């Protein structure tokens, strides 16, 4: 018989494999009012409520959990390439950001307490900042202060994440969303099979698919059935008018090949409209180094808000930070220039061929108060990730 500890470890491993954050579903406040992870079965033995809950979250039959069945737990891993690709992408992403493997990164962070980066050296960037300010001074007078020094200097920059399978990753993610959409509308008209219910619930978990009007919470199968009379009364046609995918943008646009497939990029933006803005900002930081600074002889100012702020929280007289982008050198850009040119085309205005943000079906979709009141009146409320 499988022990409770084995089941606990099994569940944690499965959730990690599917990139499902354990703490979102199983956490509680401790005596210090801090949110900490808790066991799936807090009583130390299997109980029906938590067993049904974990089965719903993972889209498993009970025997998979009770037997800690690794083979059956791979059902979604085998069906959807997304999960295998996402595991690879997570590692690549970490390495690209920290320049080390995750294990090495943890060791370096423990020793040095900060990100260890060799590519962009402070003194070199500071010198280029001065040159940029001097150059722009001819267009914007007094930008450069010849008798002052740069203070509070900081800089940030980005690099591409080298993941060649990004197109497959995005395609497979879109596949998840399309399947969730298909099953969501199928619930409206037909009974789902047990396998389809499991699949739908699992996809709801992975996508963080919630009621757009918020009151309904996670749109698991039983919740959709509960909300169905309201959905039918609302009468919208689009999936996006009912379902909000709260799973964050996993930033595939940080990969150079993302921009190769415009149609796929458009499908991605249809799911994560805010990604277009993120792409734009990312392109700026690929091409440039974002520098913050003050001049030693800058005027001290007092924010207007200080007058209304309690004394202990006032900022007081200070020299406001200024920001400017300093172009990267050709050596720093390397092959990135070709890729960033393509990527920035995606972020351009639609009139210049950029991605088009999806339009809301009707103003009533965003009338949250009436929609929430309908749910409250019907006695529907958000349960524990329910």
């Amino acid at each position: 018989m499988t022990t409770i500890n084995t089941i606990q470890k099994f569940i944690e491993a499965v959730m990690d494999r599917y990139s499902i954050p354990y703490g979102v579903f199983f956490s509680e406040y401790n005596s210090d009012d801090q949110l900490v992870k808790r066991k799936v079965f807090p009583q130390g033995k299997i109980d029906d409520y938590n067993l049904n809950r974990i089965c719903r979250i993972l889209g498993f039959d009970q025997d998979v959990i009770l037997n800690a069945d690794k083979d059956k737990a791979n059902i979604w891993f085998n069906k959807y390439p997304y999960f295998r690709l996402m595991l690879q992408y997570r590692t690549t992403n970490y390495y690209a950001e920290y320049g080390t493997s995750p294990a090495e990164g943890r060791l370096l962070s423990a020793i040095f307490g900060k990100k260890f980066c060799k590519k962009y050296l402070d003194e070199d960037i500071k010198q280029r900042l001065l040159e940029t300010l001097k150059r722009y001074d001819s267009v914007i007078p007094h930008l450069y202060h010849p008798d002052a020094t740069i203070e509070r200097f900081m800089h940030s920059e980005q690099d591409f994440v080298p993941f060649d399978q990004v197109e497959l990753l995005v395609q497979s993610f879109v596949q998840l969303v399309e399947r969730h959409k298909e099953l969501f509308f199928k619930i409206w008209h037909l009974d789902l099979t047990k396998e389809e219910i499991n699949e739908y619930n699992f996809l709801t978990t992975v996508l963080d698919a919630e009621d757009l009007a918020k009151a309904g919470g996670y749109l698991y199968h039983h919740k959709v059935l509960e909300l169905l009379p309201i959905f039918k009364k609302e009468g919208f046609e689009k999936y996006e008018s009912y379902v909000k995918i709260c799973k964050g943008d996993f930033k595939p646009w940080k990969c150079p090949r993302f921009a190769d497939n415009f149609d796929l990029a458009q499908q991605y933006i249809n799911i994560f409209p805010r990604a277009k803005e993120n792409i734009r900002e990312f392109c700026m930081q690929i091409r440039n180094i974002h520098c913050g600074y003050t001049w030693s002889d800058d005027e001290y100012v007092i924010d207007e808000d200080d007058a209304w702020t309690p004394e202990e929280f006032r900022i007081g007289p200070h020299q406001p930070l200024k920001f400017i982008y300093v172009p990267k050198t050709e050596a720093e850009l390397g092959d990135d220039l070709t890729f960033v040119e393509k990527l920035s085309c995606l972020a351009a205005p639609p009139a210049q061929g950029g991605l088009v943000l999806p339009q809301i079906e009707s103003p009533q979709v965003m009338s949250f108060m009436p929609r929430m009141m309908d749910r409250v009146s019907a006695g529907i409320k958000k349960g524990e990730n329910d």
Partner: protein
Amino acid sequence: MIEKAFSLVAGEKLRQLIKDNYSSQEEFAFDYPMDLRTVSRYINNGITKIDTIQELAEFFKVPFITFFETK
């Protein structure tokens, strides 16, 4: 911070670029995205931050310096 005269020129350039690429300021505000009040403030009172202008120049695919050119 950019001096007032230059920031106003930059704001006027933004107004022109929005007109060339969008049917309305609301459409630009939705797409960029930017709060519509901020768009209005930039156009009427000028853009004082250099990195903001650099970002807009990149977005509209125009040289940064054109934000400070007067007709």
